[in-house]
């Protein structure tokens, strides 16, 4: 009797445990589904709007598989400003990435090795561009350079230093995380004791072991440049985001297809770099 009672108690407590676990999972799943709908629904809508040659009022469940075409995108490719603006934005991205890395890697290493107490201050300074609106930044820059160095503002490449500042909050964090992930001091000392100069130590030891964070940092920088609108518009530079926006004004379907093109392109790049650096990142983790 007592045994059967205890068995039934344990069965019911097992059931309630299962129910509790199921309910416990429901909350996070609900959040996940809501988030997915929030992000995926607009993307699906954009894709249908961009690549289905059907009037918008007729876009419903019944027309889900009708008249799909890449025409809006191929037409955008044929626009006279498509390739020049894309080329300019890619060049600006490359320049920004180069200068950002050239500035931040030595700075991060120097702060880590020689001025560890200044780490908090440097972090604070790198966050500042995040709290200063781009319009305020560009207004200040224009007000200063227009009377003093107009030639600087006339060049398309005047955007590069501004983009470097804009990208700082993201890029410094990534580089700093890369430096913290390895025992920089010991690796530097080991390399130096084995006869390597500072540049050789940087090239053969530090950069290869920070590659994952360097690539992440470069990618974040490029993403900032390829999506930046305010500064380019204010300084009247015809970059890819400006072209996309203007094109959207003229041909809404084409503009959306360009936005999707950029999204897919950057996501593919991110995926590629993640795959490339995964092995290296794994090697950086020491297990015993």
């Amino acid at each position, binding site marked *: 009797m007592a045994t059967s009672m205890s068995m039934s108690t344990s069965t019911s407590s097992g059931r309630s445990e299962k129910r509790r676990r199921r309910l416990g999972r429901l909350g996070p799943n609900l959040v996940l589904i809501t988030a997915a709908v929030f992000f995926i629904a607009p993307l699906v809508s954009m894709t249908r709007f961009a690549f289905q040659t059907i009037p918008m009022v007729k876009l419903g469940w019944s027309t889900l598989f009708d008249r799909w075409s890449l025409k809006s995108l191929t037409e955008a490719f044929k626009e006279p400003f498509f390739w020049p603006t894309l080329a300019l934005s890619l060049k600006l991205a490359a320049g920004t990435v180069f200068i950002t890395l050239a500035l931040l890697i030595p700075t991060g290493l120097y702060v880590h090795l020689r001025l560890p107490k200044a780490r908090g201050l440097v972090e604070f300074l790198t966050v500042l561009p995040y709290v200063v609106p781009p319009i305020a930044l560009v207004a200040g820059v224009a007000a200063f350079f227009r009377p003093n160095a107009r030639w600087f503002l006339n060049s398309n490449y005047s955007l590069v230093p501004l983009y470097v500042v804009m990208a700082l909050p993201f890029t410094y964090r990534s580089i700093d995380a890369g430096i913290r992930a390895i*025992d920089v001091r010991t690796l530097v000392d080991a390399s130096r004791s084995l*006869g*390597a100069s500072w540049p050789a130590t940087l090239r053969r030891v530090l950069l290869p072991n920070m590659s994952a964070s360097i690539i992440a940092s470069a990618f974040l920088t490029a993403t900032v440049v390829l999506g930046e609108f305010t500064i380019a518009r204010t300084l009247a530079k015809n970059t890819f985001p400006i072209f996309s926006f203007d094109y959207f004004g003229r041909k809404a379907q084409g503009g959306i297809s360009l936005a999707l093109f950029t999204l897919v392109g950057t996501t593919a790049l991110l995926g590629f770099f993640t795959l490339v650096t995964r092995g290296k990142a794994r090697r950086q983790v020491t*297990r015993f």
Partner: protein
Amino acid sequence: MTALIYGAVRKTFGTNVALEGLDLALTTGELVSLLGPSGCGKTTALRIAAGFERADSGTITVAGKDITNLAPHKRNMGMVFQGYSLFPNLTVEGNVEYGLRTRKVPAEERRRRVGEMLELVQLSTMAKRYAHQLSGGQQQRVALARALAIKPEVLLLDEPLSALDAKVRATLRDEIRRIQTELGITTLFVTHDQEEALAISDRVGVMSDGKLEQLGAPTEIYRHPASAFVARFVGSMNQLPASVLGPDAVQVAGMTVATTAGAGLATNQQVRLLVRPEDLALVEENAGLPGSVTATTFQGTSTIVAVRLDALDALVSVHTRGASAAAITLGERVVVGIDGTRAVCEIVTEDAA
């Protein structure tokens, strides 16, 4: 012939004096350990030899050449670090080859040397592995091979065993000594572990507050400590309140102990007599100080007996051997005899008293 000489090396960090005029000379092929508590300056001394820190004053000489102001990468020093220092992006052989590449050694010679070094540390089968695929002990062996591959003039070991577990530590410690002896390489070994230092060194330098308290063979350091600090830091030590009777005797709780430890001190000077557990013995009645056994620790070949002395109300450890020692029971009345031959006297200051 001397291989490495510290000449009155002084180093400060702000107001903290890390090294106070260190004088030390290592002869070719010997292994000298710098032993001391954290912050005593031992690692600073090693880093100054490696070139990672600059001395405020004094000189560092290697094989007769002054290298005090030479950059680290221009000194021919091999170093093994406390933390795991293998380059994660390189394989084991890539790591060992690193120093040879920086010296632009031809490929054929590099391959041969890497093979030799990996054989020396018995890791030839792991040449293609990365650091994360090795255990801590294996990583330190590779680090040792990497440091030795460049044929350094001096090998610097900065607590290379401290991150390892006890068993691996003991094995690697012996392996380091075997390799060092085999290659005859002058080695400076920094450690806070007295057992490690005493086990593998030709000479041990005990440091405290930036100063070298004593430099000597392990047995000399253990048996004839030059100061109370060395006596306390190396091995375990009993402390007994005593007063000086003369140059060859002190009195402990009314019992006269023959020792020269009080030589040079005034008669009736209050001191602490520092005596090792193995210099205390359980003796016949009237030949020592009576007390009760409070604990026994069996250690295989010997037994440590803790005795509370009646006259001093102080606890002492007695190192005993033989079958009778194992039969001692808790609370048993015993008599503790003191052999003062190797004892050290420490003056009791008013504050300490």
